[in-house]
């Protein structure tokens, strides 16, 4: 069965979605990713959709779900590389992906992930006093 590869880079996970996903593949990714976060105690997830030519409400929901699920497992996530035509279509479709952090490309996404994690760590330090 098809599978979207999940790469581990230190405390981050990198997912590059390069195929026109059918729904089961999207669900499988959700499953695989939550397991990978737990197994590697990952702090951050970067999802690269720069080759995706379309995001419909199903894929949009999957992305939002992954982001929420990662947060519950203690990982931050950032969606990177959305094509302009996809962004325009998503907003018109009525999906603005609330709660999902985004960045233009992998580099900026990685920087954002680091800042987010540093933010979480300093909050924890404050509470722990």
């Amino acid at each position, binding site marked *: 069965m098809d599978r979207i590869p999940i790469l581990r880079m230190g405390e981050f996970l990198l997912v590059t979605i390069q195929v*026109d*996903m*059918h*729904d*089961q593949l999207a669900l499988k990714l959700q499953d695989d990713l939550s397991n990978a976060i737990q197994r590697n105690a990952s702090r951050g997830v970067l999802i690269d959709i720069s080759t995706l*030519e*379309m*995001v*419909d*409400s*199903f894929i*949009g*929901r999957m992305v939002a779900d992954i982001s929420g699920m990662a947060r519950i497992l203690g990982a931050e996530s950032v969606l990177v590389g959305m*094509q*302009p*035509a*996809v962004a*325009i*279509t998503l907003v*018109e*479709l*009525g*999906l603005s992906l609330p709660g999902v952090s985004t960045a233009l490309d992998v580099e900026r996404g990685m920087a954002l992930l680091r800042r987010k994690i540093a933010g979480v760590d300093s909050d924890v330090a404050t509470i722990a006093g």
Partner: protein
Amino acid sequence: MSQPSQGEAPLRSEKDIVLARQLVRRLTQDLAFSLVDQTKMVTAASELARNALIYGRGGTMYWELVQRDSFRGLKLLFADEGPGIPDIDLAMKDGWTSGNGLGMGLSGARRLVNDFELDSRVGAGTRVSITRWK
């Protein structure tokens, strides 16, 4: 030999949704739609194909290259013989869903195209037709 100006594609499995998207992408490219317009039509088709599969228990996508005055466009008809939609006004509302989707399928698809027609009868199935003009 000229290209066919109409055709159909089955919507019986998730794979068919992907194939329908690819077909619509190719047709809109042949019509020289802009990238944004291609993406809107492909996304609308994806939503309606999934509706036909999940709520309509499978169906067919019929496509046709259409012309009005000097405008060319693509018309898609999604037909299923499923249970039909009891309350169309409710189904067209943003955020309303009878399944486990986001409820953006019908209302969202309507916003992505120029013409949208929905005909549904309880027990007889649902037909949604959309057209996007270049």
